[in-house]
């Protein structure tokens, strides 16, 4: 149970930290620290299991039908990463407290950081790969927020956008890859996938799946050709870089390689792709790093290079290479995080990061200098530091791997070349910054930072030293545990001694050290050469060009399709549908007419159909005489109701009938504010074109209807009919479906209705439009008051109509009726009062604010649904009972009825809200017609 908690704590903590920051800067730092500690404590009880070779699993069904479950696992690899994420996270939180400027509220920073931490923990602890992908995307999002933390700087926004674009694209590819992988393995759970290696590798779709997954891993871990986003992400505050770009986010891609290592590795495709990307990245990163004058730029490219190194190791596919890879993950995280923090201290103290100006800092900050030098030596691979151990293993593995190949010397030499460059740039970091003369023109006079700012660096550097000097005591058990889970096999025999005797690896290390010293000595001519070569090949330029082209294309396409004319868009849509419809049906082989016996045609139906077609044609022909067209459409709605009556749908007929009245009243009211006649604008050719398109669309729809109607029916409704009475307690199956079987749908639909009402409320709020003075034929508007007899009759009708609606509502469960229809009838009854008695009269008796009514309806419906949860049933389970009332007789009470009441209230509220708002606009334009018996024409 503690695994989901470990992930949940940072997410909850993120919200809490953001909130706490209102009470002071320190409070949010403390909260973030405590939250992280809490997550660590929560993880601790499970930590011994992976050491014993066990995997902790936690499972909760979420959407088992699509293989997506809330499932978490803790094994060696997960534990190593989780400990790194939380441990380094804690140090970064401490560090950031001193790093970030006093004016910053810190709450936002720590909230983002914890959000990121939770997402990252989700990746490394997920058992389900789709779940892992969700967290994967969350890290992209949260890192976007972190990189753009100083959002007022353009380079921050730019760097954040670039990181999001590249990693987001990779995430999409990864989704495809993981779906393929899940299908191949037969499960989306890692426990199963990890055992299906042979089957997956033999699958015909292995290569595309591998490419997609590698795209995800390479974009995240900044592998060539996607490496360019990482240096630009350095626009982030340094604590973010120390966390995301050394220890966590960029390691997610590597984590994925390690996680899927037993499934995917060992094939030629894997070897070539992974080694190729890793080697290229290693060389590019190492080559560029030396020439970056920006301290963080140097570290960024060195990070790129080290990520390439680890990728290359996993590409080798041997168990020992995996050991070296895991070891270097750990080492790189410690020395790179401390180096970033040291760089941050230097930036903080000097006000610049330009190594051409920062010199001789040893005199100003000897402690920081010592720490940074140890970390840099570890990065260079100097003996007695942890970087040396894994780098030597790396040299040994590459030499071993390529010994059997033709040109086998090539890989080790390239690798040594990268080692040479690594020594050179590490040396530059030490010598340029801390020695090399005096500082030049620094904005601030540097001195030692606050004590607590150095503590995180010191802790990490201590780990570097401890691991470097006593590897067998400190790191070996961790490595064994992790490697066992990476390989899903017992780890191979390896020896972590500092000295293995003279051999090829020692020789390679030696060459790298001496070579690095000489390259650094010759740096000045090299810098001049680099300055001349600058901008020759710039991956960012290609990215920018691609993005610009894409935007140009999108702009062109949008302008072509959308010139502000709805007609053009609708036409494009219709033609597309028609083309695809024709393409889909031509040559499909199945006949248009199915085998179902068709019903005979009777005279009444024929007449009705003829009438309906006539009415439709009249509507179209008269559409410019808007008032007439509207009346005709009303007739059409009534004919629709008759169709429903004919074909056994009494509920639909009732609904259609009441909706029709409301719709026509609404359109009439709206027409008052619109031109009464449409001008004759379309050319003859245009009308013919539209008629042809309309004809084709109509033919298509008709043919489709015919094809469906003549085919036999295979329905799932048998279940509803069989269970309506025993399960739902109602004999009106349609109503039981609405309020019980598919109650969740109905809840969604009344929510849509409420939202539409709310949208209209917002749209008409404060809207004033000029009303009519005369009709289309020039007759002046009639200012008579409401006819007295009609008003009186309508008032009399109101209680009757309400009674009918109550009746319809109550019987709805068993006979045609229900909340929807009853709601519409009530609405019609009240609207009638508006129409016959005027807005003012009605408003004195009925509140015009319908929002509480809608809210109450939604609340009742939702609470009814939630109520069943209290009794341990799924959401919206209904229950019912029969009670005997003295006079009324047997009466059924069902919770579904309460739900239906919610539906009723929402329908009444939304319908009235819409019409009342229009009515209010009328009152504004016709102040005389307010029921006050004034006969005067307004001025």
């Amino acid at each position: 149970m503690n695994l989901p908690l470990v992930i949940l704590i940072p997410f909850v903590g993120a919200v809490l930290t953001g909130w706490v920051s209102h009470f002071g800067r320190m409070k949010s730092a403390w909260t973030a620290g405590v939250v992280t500690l809490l997550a660590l404590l929560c993880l601790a009880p499970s930590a011994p299991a992976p050491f014993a070779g066990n995997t902790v699993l936690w499972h909760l069904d979420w959407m088992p039908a699509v293989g997506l479950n809330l499932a978490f696992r803790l094994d060696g690899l997960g534990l190593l990463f989780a400990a790194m994420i939380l441990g380094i996270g804690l140090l970064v939180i401490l560090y950031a407290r001193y790093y970030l400027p006093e004016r910053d509220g810190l709450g936002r920073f720590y909230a983002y950081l914890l959000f990121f931490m939770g997402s990252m923990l989700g990746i490394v602890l997920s058992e389900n790969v789709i779940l892992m992908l969700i967290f994967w995307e969350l890290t992209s999002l949260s890192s976007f927020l972190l990189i753009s933390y100083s959002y007022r700087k353009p380079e921050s926004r730019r760097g954040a956008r670039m990181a999001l674009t590249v990693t987001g694209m990779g995430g999409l590819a990864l989704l495809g890859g993981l779906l393929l992988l899940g299908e191949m393995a037969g499960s989306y759970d890692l426990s199963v996938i990890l055992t299906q290696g042979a089957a997956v590798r033999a699958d015909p779709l292995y290569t595309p799946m591998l490419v997609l997954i590698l795209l995800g891993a390479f974009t995240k871990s900044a592998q060539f050709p996607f490496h360019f986003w990482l240096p630009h992400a350095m626009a982030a505050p340094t604590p973010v870089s120390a966390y995301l770009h050394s220890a966590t986010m960029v390691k997610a891609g590597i984590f994925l390689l390690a996680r899927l290592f037993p499934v995917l590795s060992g094939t030629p495709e894997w070897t070539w792709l992974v080694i190729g990307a890793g080697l290229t990245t290693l060389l590019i990163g190492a080559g560029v790093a030396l020439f970056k004058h920006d301290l963080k730029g140097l570290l960024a490219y060195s990070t790129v290079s080290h990520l390439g190194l680890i990728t290359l190791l996993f590409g080798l596919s041997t168990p020992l290479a995996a050991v070296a890879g895991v070891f270097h993950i750990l080492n790189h995280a410690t020395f790179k995080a401390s180096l970033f923090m040291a760089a941050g201290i230097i930036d903080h103290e000097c006000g610049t990061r330009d190594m051409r100006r920062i010199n001789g800092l040893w005199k100003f900050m000897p402690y920081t200098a010592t720490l940074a030098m140890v970390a840099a030596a570890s990065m260079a691979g100097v003996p007695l530091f942890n970087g040396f151990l894994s780098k030597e293993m790396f040299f040994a593995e590459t030499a071993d791997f390529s010994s059997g190949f033709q040109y086998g010397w090539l890989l080790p030499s390239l690798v040594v070349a990268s080692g040479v460059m690594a020594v050179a740039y590490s040396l530059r970091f030490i010598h340029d910054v801390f020695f090399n003369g005096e500082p030049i023109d620094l904005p601030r006079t540097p001195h030692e930072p606050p004590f607590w700012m150095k503590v995180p660096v010191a802790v990490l550097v201590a780990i570097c030293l401890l691991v470097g000097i006593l590897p067998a005591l400190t790191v070996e058990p961790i490595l064994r545990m992790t490697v066992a889970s990476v390989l899903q096999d017992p780890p191979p025999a390896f020896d972590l001694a500092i000295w293995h005797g003279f051999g090829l690896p020692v020789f390679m290390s030696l060459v790298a050290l001496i070579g690095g010293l000489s390259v650094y000595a010759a740096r000045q001519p090299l810098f001049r050469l680099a300055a001349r070569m600058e901008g020759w090949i710039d991956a960012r330029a290609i990215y920018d060009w691609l993005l610009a082209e894409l935007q140009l294309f999108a702009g062109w396409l949008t302008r072509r399709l959308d010139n502000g004319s709805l007609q053009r868009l609708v036409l494009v849509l219709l033609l597309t549908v028609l083309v695809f419809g024709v393409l889909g049906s031509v040559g499909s082989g199945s006949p248009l007419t199915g085998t179902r016996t068709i019903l005979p045609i009777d005279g009444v139906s024929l007449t009705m159909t003829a009438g309906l077609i006539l009415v439709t044609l009249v509507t179209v022909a008269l559409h410019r005489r808007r008032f007439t067209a509207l009346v005709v459409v009303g007739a059409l709605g009534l004919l629709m109701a008759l169709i429903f009556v004919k074909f056994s749908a009494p509920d639909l007929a009732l609904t259609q009938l009441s909706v029709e009245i409301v719709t026509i009243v609404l359109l009439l009211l709206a027409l008052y504010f619109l031109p009464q006649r449409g001008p004759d604008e379309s050319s003859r050719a245009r009308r013919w074109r539209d008629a042809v398109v309309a004809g084709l669309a109509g033919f298509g729809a008709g043919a489709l209807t015919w094809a469906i109607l003549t085919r036999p029916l295979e329905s799932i409704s048998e279940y509803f009919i069989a269970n309506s009475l025993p399960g739902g307690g109602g004999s009106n199956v349609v109503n039981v479906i609405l309020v019980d079987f598919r109650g969740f749908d109905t809840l969604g639909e009344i929510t849509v209705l409420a939202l539409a009402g709310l949208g209209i409320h917002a749209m008409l709020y404060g809207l004033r439009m000029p009303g009519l003075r005369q009709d289309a034929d020039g007759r002046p508007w009639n200012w008579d008051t409401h006819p007295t007899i009609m008003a009186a009759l309508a008032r009399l009708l109101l209680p009757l109509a309400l009674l009918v609606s109550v009746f319809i509502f109550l019987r709805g469960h068993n006979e045609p009726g229900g909340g929807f229809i009853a709601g519409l009838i009530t609405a019609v009854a009240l609207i009638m009062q508006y129409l016959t008695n005027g807005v003012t009269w009605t408003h004195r008796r009925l509140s015009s604010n319908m929002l509480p009514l809608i809210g109450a309806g939604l609340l009742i419906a939702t609470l009814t649904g939630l109520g069943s949860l209290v009794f341990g049933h799924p959401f919206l389970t209904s229950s019912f009972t029969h009670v005997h009332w003295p006079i009324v007789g047997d009466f059924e009470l069902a919770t579904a009825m309460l739900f239906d009441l919610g539906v009723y209230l929402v329908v009444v509220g939304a319908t009235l809200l819409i019409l009342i708002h229009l009515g209010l606009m009328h009152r504004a334009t016709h102040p005389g017609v307010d029921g006050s018996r004034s006969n005067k024409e307004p001025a």
Partner: protein
Amino acid sequence: MEALMSLIVGVLTAGGVYLLLRARTFSVVLGLTLLTYAVNLFLFASGRLTIGAPPILDPELSRYTDPLPQALVLTAIVISFAMTAFVIMLALRARAELGNDHVDGRASAGASKESEA
């Protein structure tokens, strides 16, 4: 009977599409109304046509029409009312803001002739 139903759906669709392609808001709303009828009938037809067998359970009856499309269409009718209302209000707001009721992108072309009403 099926042929008549198909004919009705086809004619309603054609009428709706034709009105949808007109240049003024009100015609578009009318077109949407016709299309709504067509779509609702089409959905309803997916349960096939049955005469005299409403889905109201009755111990003496054994034959019922398919209730599921009816439930779907019932909510569809109410939702399409909400949609019609929303669109017509949008048309009103657009006329108030823009001073005309064009949807063909030629906003200013006919604005001067608006006072006919």
